[in-house]
């Protein structure tokens, strides 16, 4: 009796109605999750029809390749977004640091394993420090901004403002090589995206990271160690940046201070254009990769059209804004 009454108060729908509404709900959900795909598909189709050379295999591989670096960094940085700490503004600086540490260790004659280990250890430290500060309650945007600034200054100072060029590049195969015609960078990107996606939905750590972003207060009350998760998220972002740093060193055999100019903005744009809820708590990591792809595709199309740099930037900003607005409106409708 009482149970029925509760249903009256809360549900107020008959079974068939609720099934119907559930069906509608799931349609809305899938529409929502497809939202970032829609612009990609649209752009892709239009471009393939209208622009000669766009739909060619080499060009598409070039697009994936060009989005790989941004994408890999975005996968790591997305952990910060998902755990509810917005984005890191120190991605560029972390990548530069990694590039310098890696080349420096290699150029003093250490084996590649040592260089990789050193780079990753430095990344873990960098990530842990930032994560600790943010977990203490400092504003994540400003903390990473300040930390990045100090980090960059320190690296440039320590490197004595020099470019380090490798005579022998042990990571050339990874940074520049191809497997079955696909650039290895792109392979790494896709593998990481898959790993990350599975990680978030199929591990305790991943699921708790998502919950922590969804509502940190509730997460804390049920005993989820949110500080630790925040630190882990920052470490993973730093590790992804470090990987990006090493991959690019593998590709170009050198470390220079301005080699990642603009990466941070690209990564932030990729995360947001992909549609990862910026408030956190939405565990769809693949969106970060999709975002990177959309952005690269946009610039690729404009490049194929032979547009001038100014026009290209203008369109890039405008289109990104349009995608963003369309997605925001769609998401609100589906709620």
């Amino acid at each position, binding site marked *: 009796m009482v149970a029925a009454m509760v249903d009256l108060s809360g549900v107020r729908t008959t079974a068939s109605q609720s099934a119907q509404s559930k069906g509608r709900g799931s349609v809305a959900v899938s529409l929502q999750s497809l939202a970032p795909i829609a612009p990609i598909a649209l752009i892709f189709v239009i471009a393939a029809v209208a622009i000669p*050379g766009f739909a*060619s295999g*080499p*060009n598409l591989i*070039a*697009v994936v*390749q*060009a989005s790989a670096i941004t994408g890999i960094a975005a996968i790591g940085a997305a952990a910060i977004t998902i755990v509810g700490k917005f984005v890191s503004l120190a991605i560029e600086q972390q990548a530069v640091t990694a590039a310098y540490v890696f080349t420096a260790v290699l150029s003093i004659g250490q084996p590649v394993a040592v260089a990789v280990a050193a780079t990753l250890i430095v990344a873990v430290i960098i990530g842990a420090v930032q994560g600790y500060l943010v977990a203490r309650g400092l504003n994540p945007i400003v903390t990473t901004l300040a930390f990045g600034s100090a980090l*960059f200054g320190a690296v*440039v100072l320590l490197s*004595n*403002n*020099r*470019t380090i*060029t490798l005579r022998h590049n042990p990571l050339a195969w990874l940074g*520049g090589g*191809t497997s079955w015609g696909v*650039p290895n960078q792109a392979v790494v990107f896709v593998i990481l995206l898959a790993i990350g996606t599975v990680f978030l939905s199929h591990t305790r750590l991943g699921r708790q990271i998502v919950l922590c972003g969804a509502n940190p207060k509730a997460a804390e009350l049920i005993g989820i160690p949110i500080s630790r998760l925040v630190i882990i998220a920052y470490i993973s972002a730093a590790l992804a940046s470090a990987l990006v740093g090493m991959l*690019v060193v593998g*590709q*170009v*055999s*050198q470390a*220079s*201070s*301005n*080699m*990642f*100019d603009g990466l941070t903005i690209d990564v932030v744009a990729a995360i947001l254009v992909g549609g990862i809820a910026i408030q956190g708590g939405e565990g769809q990591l693949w969106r970060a990769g999709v975002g990177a792809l959309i952005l690269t595709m946009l*610039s*690729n199309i404009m*490049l*194929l059209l*032979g547009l001038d*740099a*100014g026009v290209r*930037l203008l369109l890039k900003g405008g289109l990104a804004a349009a995608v963003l607005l369309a997605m925001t409106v769609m998401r609100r409708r589906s709620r």
Partner: protein
Amino acid sequence: MNQSSITAQNATRRIVKRSRRYLLSLSILALAAGPAWAADLPLSGGGKEIVVLMPSRSNAYLAQWIRGAEASAKEDDYKLTVIENNFDQTEQDSQTEQRIALPHQPAAYIWWPADARAGIASLRRLSRTGVPVFQANQAVQPAAKKYVKAYAGVDDFFNGQIAGQNAEAARAAFVAAGNKLSSPGGNLVILKFIPGYSAGDDRERGFMDATKGKPFHVIATEYGGFDNASGYKAMSQLIPRIRGQGIDFVYGMSDGPVTGAVQALEEAGLKPGKNVYLVSATCIADISAIKSAKEFATGVQAAGLEGWFAVNVVARYFAHGDKILPGTYIAPATVDARPQFTEPPSEVNIIPNPPVVVGTNAADAPKVLANFKLWGQTFVDHCVY
């Protein structure tokens, strides 16, 4: 030695000869114009201060420039103060205001505008202090000529011309190697620096000027940044679009983007140094492409040398009693030792920018580089920092 490399060497010799002649005549002109004080003047500045207002040395080229300038200041007994901005004109303007306002003014200012050709009002205010102002690295705008005593540094137009000559040599070698040009002039891709960066425009003009006799067919002009990674990114996205037309030559504004382009071309299955020739006229940091002869030719635009030269021009200005000669002076590209600069500086003082043509034979390339010398220093000394 196969046929193609001999042709390449001939072409090289021709270029070197031609540019030597050009430089020689210019320097003779300059010498003739000035009074002939042949005596070795001591350039002692007596510890006076030279203030350099320039963008940040977090960029390796600028850092090397400062090292050269500091060496030069030490030789001539000047105290060098570098005030850096973060590639930001507003910051440079405030720094200028601040420095101008101080009671102790330096002996000279060296002005390297943050934003190419910008900051004209700050330059004017610098010149009003009465302290001589010398501009470095970025060519003096016509409107700003009256505020600047002299210019010392690279000439981007000249650099473009050298690149043009390199490209012509590459074309000759390309044909001689039995490759077929995709168009009468040969298809060319230009990788410029970044949008709005005027050095890129000047170099492009210089290149066009040097090749106007038999112009290349430019199939794409793309921004390839300053470093390998940017060059790679630009080229790899460009290739699918233009490949069908045939890519014969790539002109990169410096070796950074060229090295990236080499990578991108190789990944696309093209063979730099075989069926596509790449040239530049500025070596920077990474010499792997030129060393493996995947890049056909480059030029030595040495950051350290430029910095040394800029301070030297200032020192000579004072040593000669504040004298400036009219016209342009291009410093000779002497091989074994730095030339004796005994004459007063000219209005425009350009550092040498000798071409380095290694051709297409990877085995010979290191030798060519090893044999190269400018002002007594090797290719590596100038280009690796």
